């Protein structure tokens, strides 16, 4: 995982720089700017290292997975989509087909989750939880936030993965 940045750079021919930024926010964890041949990932400085790993990985997945038709500099529409459209499908009673912003975001979130907490180890982790191991211990071993580990082990996450895979096969 530590080599992910270099792999993405080499495979996609794009130069990637990552920056810690000192600014105050409750919600904004990270920001990706992309040009034709270079990308910058900006991470809010006052987060745990585990959240920084998650944020960077999610933005790297955007670089890997997004096609040109997914690119957008219409930041307001992107933010609106993130806030209003229940990206993670937690309360998704909207039966309309999600637009490209939402599909891109769901793919990035799932991609990051699968890199950091792969499917092939989750069954064993669930068993460990059933046997008394704490989510905190599992998250610590994986170097991801507790909340992320907890969410990835839920049925809700599995349903989101199914949704994402279905959208990719359309």
């Amino acid at each position, binding site marked *: 995982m530590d080599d992910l940045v270099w792999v993405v750079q080499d495979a996609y021919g794009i130069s990637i720089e990552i920056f810690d*930024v000192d600014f105050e926010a409750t919600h*904004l964890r990270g920001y*990706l*700017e*992309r040009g034709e041949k270079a990308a910058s990932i*900006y991470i809010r400085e006052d987060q745990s290292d585990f959240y920084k790993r998650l944020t960077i990985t999610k*933005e790297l997945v955007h670089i890997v997975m997004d096609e040109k038709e997914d690119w957008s500099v219409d*930041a*307001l529409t992107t933010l609106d989509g993130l806030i209003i459209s229940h990206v993670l499908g937690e309360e998704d009673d909207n039966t309309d087909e999600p637009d490209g912003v939402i599909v891109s975001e769901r793919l990035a979130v799932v991609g990051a989750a699968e890199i950091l907490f792969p499917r092939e180890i989750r069954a064993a982790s669930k068993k460990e939880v059933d046997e008394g191991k704490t989510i905190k211990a599992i998250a610590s071993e994986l170097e991801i936030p507790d909340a992320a580990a907890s969410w990835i082990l839920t049925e809700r996450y599995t349903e989101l993965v199914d949704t994402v895979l279905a959208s990719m096969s359309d």
Partner: protein
Amino acid sequence: MATTPSEELTKRIAERVEEHELVDVKFYLGNPGEASFDVVCEEVGRLYDALGRNEFRKVDTFKDSYKTD
């Protein structure tokens, strides 16, 4: 008339897109379901303020900065 956070952000995004020849911008929001649009616009504004003041530090390698052991 005072500009709204979103109006201000629209202007700043456009400036940044032009200056850096951007083709794509993406955001990672924590707890987006609890966020208000104006608050998030203000947060992005604060990020841009920090970038404008050069209050950011390059992370040389992913491994060196975020390895925890």
